[in-house]
C-alpha cells in the first residue's frame, strides 16, 4: 500500500509538472539519416546542411487560415529540419520532409525545392498505399516539377482538399493518393516559406549577388534594413506614401570584391503584381544604377515584365523621373540601397 501511495504521488507530480509545460517534441533517436534521400533528389549535390526550426501553433494557424480545411497533424508540429543542399560550395536547393494524414496512415514525403521554392522532385519516403507505384512515375512527377505554392493550390478544387482533374492527370485508382501528395506539397511550400523565410531569403540574396556581380567575393546581410536613416530617406522621397512594397519583407545584402571594395547590393521585397504576391529582386550598383531585376514567382504577363525590365540601366533619384509603378518601386529600391550603402 505504501509503495502504491508513493507511485501515485510520483505520477501526480509528473502530471502537474507536465501541465505547466508548453513545448512539443517528437522522439529523437528515431530521426533518420537524410543523406540518401538528398542524394536521390539532388544527385548533383556535394553536401547538405540542416536548419532546425519550430513549427508551432502560429504556423499551424496560418496554414489553417490560408488553406482551409487543411491543418497540420500533431506530428507535423514541433522542431523540423530544412536541409540546404550545396553543389560545389553554392546553395542550390532544399529538401524538406513532411507527413500527411491518409487512409493508410501517415504518408511521409521528401520534397526537393529550388532556391525560389519551386518543386524540383519528390520521394515517397513512407507510403503504405498500394497505389504507390501509380504515382511514383515520371508521368505524374513531371506535372509537379517547377510548380510553386500557388500552382499547387490550383491543383486542388475550391474545397482545398480534392483533386482538380483539369490540372492533374492521374490513374483513377491513385486519385486519393495523388490528393494526399498535392496537399502535402502545398503545405510543404507554404510551411517552408513561413518557418524558414530568413534562410530562404538569405540564399536567394547570395545567389543574386553571385549572378549579378562577377567580381563578388563576399556578401554581408544587412540587419534590420528599414531602421533609422532608411525610413527617413523613404519618407523624404515619397512624402510618406507607399509604393506597394511590403517594407517588413525587405532584405538587402551588400556585395564586396576581393579588395573589400563595395560593388553594390541585392535588394529583395514582396510586392503584389497583378493580384499575385511576388518577390522582386533588384541588383543595384554602388552608384545606384539598376543592373538587373528578377521576379522569383514569374512575371505572369509580358507587358508587366517589359515595364519592370525597362528600369534596367536607370538610376532614379526622385519621383519626378518615374512614369509608372515599375519605376516607382525601382526608385524605392534605389533610395533604400543608397541609404544603406552610404551608412
Amino acid at each position, binding site marked *: 500500500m505504501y*509503495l502504491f501511495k508513493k507511485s501515485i504521488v510520483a505520477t501526480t507530480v*509528473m502530471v502537474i509538472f507536465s501541465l505547466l509545460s508548453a513545448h512539443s517534441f517528437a522522439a529523437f533517436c528515431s530521426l533518420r539519416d537524410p*543523406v540518401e534521400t538528398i542524394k536521390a533528389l539532388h544527385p548533383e549535390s556535394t553536401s547538405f546542411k540542416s536548419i*532546425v526550426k519550430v513549427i508551432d501553433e502560429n504556423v499551424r494557424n496560418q496554414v489553417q487560415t490560408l488553406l482551409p480545411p487543411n491543418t497540420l497533424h*500533431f*506530428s507535423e508540429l514541433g522542431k523540423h529540419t530544412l536541409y540546404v543542399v550545396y553543389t560545389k560550395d553554392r546553395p542550390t536547393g532544399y529538401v524538406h520532409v513532411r507527413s500527411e494524414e491518409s487512409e493508410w496512415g501517415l504518408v511521409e514525403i521528401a520534397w526537393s525545392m529550388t532556391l525560389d521554392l519551386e518543386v524540383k522532385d519528390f520521394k515517397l519516403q513512407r507510403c503504405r*498505399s498500394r497505389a504507390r507505384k501509380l504515382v511514383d512515375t515520371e508521368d505524374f512527377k513531371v506535372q509537379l516539377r517547377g510548380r510553386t505554392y500557388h500552382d499547387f493550390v490550383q491543383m486542388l478544387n475550391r474545397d482545398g482538399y480534392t483533386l482538380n482533374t483539369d490540372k492533374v492527370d492521374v490513374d483513377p485508382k491513385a486519385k486519393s493518393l495523388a490528393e494526399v501528395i498535392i496537399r502535402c506539397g502545398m503545405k510543404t511550400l507554404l510551411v517552408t516559406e513561413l518557418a524558414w523565410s530568413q534562410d530562404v531569403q*538569405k540564399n536567394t540574396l547570395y545567389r543574386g549577388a553571385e549572378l549579378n556581380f562577377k567580381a563578388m567575393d563576399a*556578401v*554581408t546581410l544587412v540587419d534590420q534594413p528599414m531602421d533609422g536613416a532608411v525610413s527617413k530617406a523613404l519618407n523624404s522621397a515619397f512624402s510618406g506614401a507607399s509604393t506597394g512594397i511590403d517594407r517588413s519583407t525587405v532584405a538587402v545584402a551588400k556585395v564586396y570584391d576581393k579588395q573589400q571594395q563595395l560593388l553594390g547590393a541585392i535588394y529583395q521585397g514582396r510586392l503584389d503584381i497583378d493580384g499575385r504576391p511576388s518577390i522582386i529582386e533588384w541588383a543595384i550598383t554602388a552608384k545606384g544604377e539598376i543592373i538587373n531585376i528578377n521576379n522569383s514567382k514569374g512575371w505572369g504577363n509580358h507587358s508587366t515584365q517589359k515595364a519592370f525590365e525597362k528600369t534596367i540601366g536607370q538610376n532614379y533619384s526622385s519621383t519626378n523621373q518615374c512614369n509608372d509603378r515599375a519605376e516607382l518601386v525601382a526608385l524605392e529600391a534605389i533610395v533604400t540601397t543608397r541609404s544603406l550603402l552610404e551608412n
Partner: protein
Amino acid sequence: MEAIKYSEDIQIKKLTLLGLCLLCSLTCWNTASWANDTDTDSPNRFSDNLRFTLDASSRAVYFSRQNQTGFMHAFGFDLHKVFSGQQRDIGTLVLQGYLTRIDNFVTAPAIFDDPDDTEFVYRIFNFNYTGLPGNWPNLRIGHFEVAYGLEHAIDTNGTLRQYQQGANLGIKADWGVSLNKQLTSFEYEIGATSGGNQELDSDDGSFVYSARIGTPRDENTVLGLAVYKSELNNLKRERLGVDVRYYHGLHGFFAEVSTGENNETDVLNLFGEWNYRNSTESLLYYTQLSYLSIDVTGNSALKGIVGVKYAPDNHWSLSTQYARDINVFVGKKHQGLFNLQLRYRF
C-alpha cells in the same frame, strides 16, 4: 568492496558524461569558428539545430506468479543536436539519460541491484560522425543499440513494446563504436562494444560484436540479415538472424528468426508480430509470439503478448500490455505480466 565498485562506476559515468559534454562543447566551438562571416545564420550557438525535451514515465507491473505489483518511474532528458560546418552537417549527438526508480519490481532488470533500487540509465548516448564524403561510412561512438534484428530499426526505448533483444542476445544497448550508413539500396551498421551494458567496460572480458545489413527501413517490405557474437558474464553467444517487415495498409507483419549457440548449445529463436494502427496513428494495437528453444531436446519456451498504445499528441502516451508464458523451460514456472504505462514528453 561492493561499495567501492559502485563508487567507481558512478565516477566512470560522471567522467563519461563530462567527456561527452566536453566533446559537444568543443565541436560547438569549432562549428562557430568555421562559420563564414558572410553567412550570418550559420549555426554558431548550441541551441541551433538542437532538440531537447524532458521525458517522464510511470509504469505499473502486475506479476501474476508472485501476485505482486511493482512500479518503475523514469525521469530524464532526450537531446538531439546536429552539428554543422559552413556548408555541411558534421555529426549528430543523441543523449538520453534517465534517473530510474523501481519499487517492488520482483523480476528486476539486471542493471538494478535489487527490487527496490534507483539507477541512472543510459539509453541512447552517442555521437555519430557523418562528415565523411560520398559513400564513406559514419562513425558512431558511445552507447547505442546492438545492430541486430527488428530492434535495430524500430525505436523501443522506454516503451512496453519490445522485440526480445535482451532475452535473445543478453543485451540491448552497449558502449562502443560502430560504422554505419544508410545508402540508396541498403543500410548497414557494424559495431564492436564492450559488453558492459550500462558500464563503459567490464572486468570479466565481455565483448559484443554485431553487424546488420538491411534494405531501406522506410520501404513497405524490409529485409535484414544480421550476425552477432558476444561473451557476457562468461556466456558465449553466436547468432545468425533474418528479420522481415511487411506493411499492408494499416497492418504490419514482422518476423525474426535467429539461430546459433549459447556456449555450444544450439539455440533457435522465432519471433512474430502483427500490428495495426488507426489512420491518424494515435492508436497502435499489436500481438506478438516469441519462441525460444535451447538445445535440441525440445526444451523450449513460448510467450504471447498483446498490447495497445494510445498517443493522442506529441506529449502523452498511454500504453498497456499483457505478456503470458504459454510454455516454459524445464524447471521454470509460468509468469504473467500486466503492464500499464503513462509517459509524457515535455
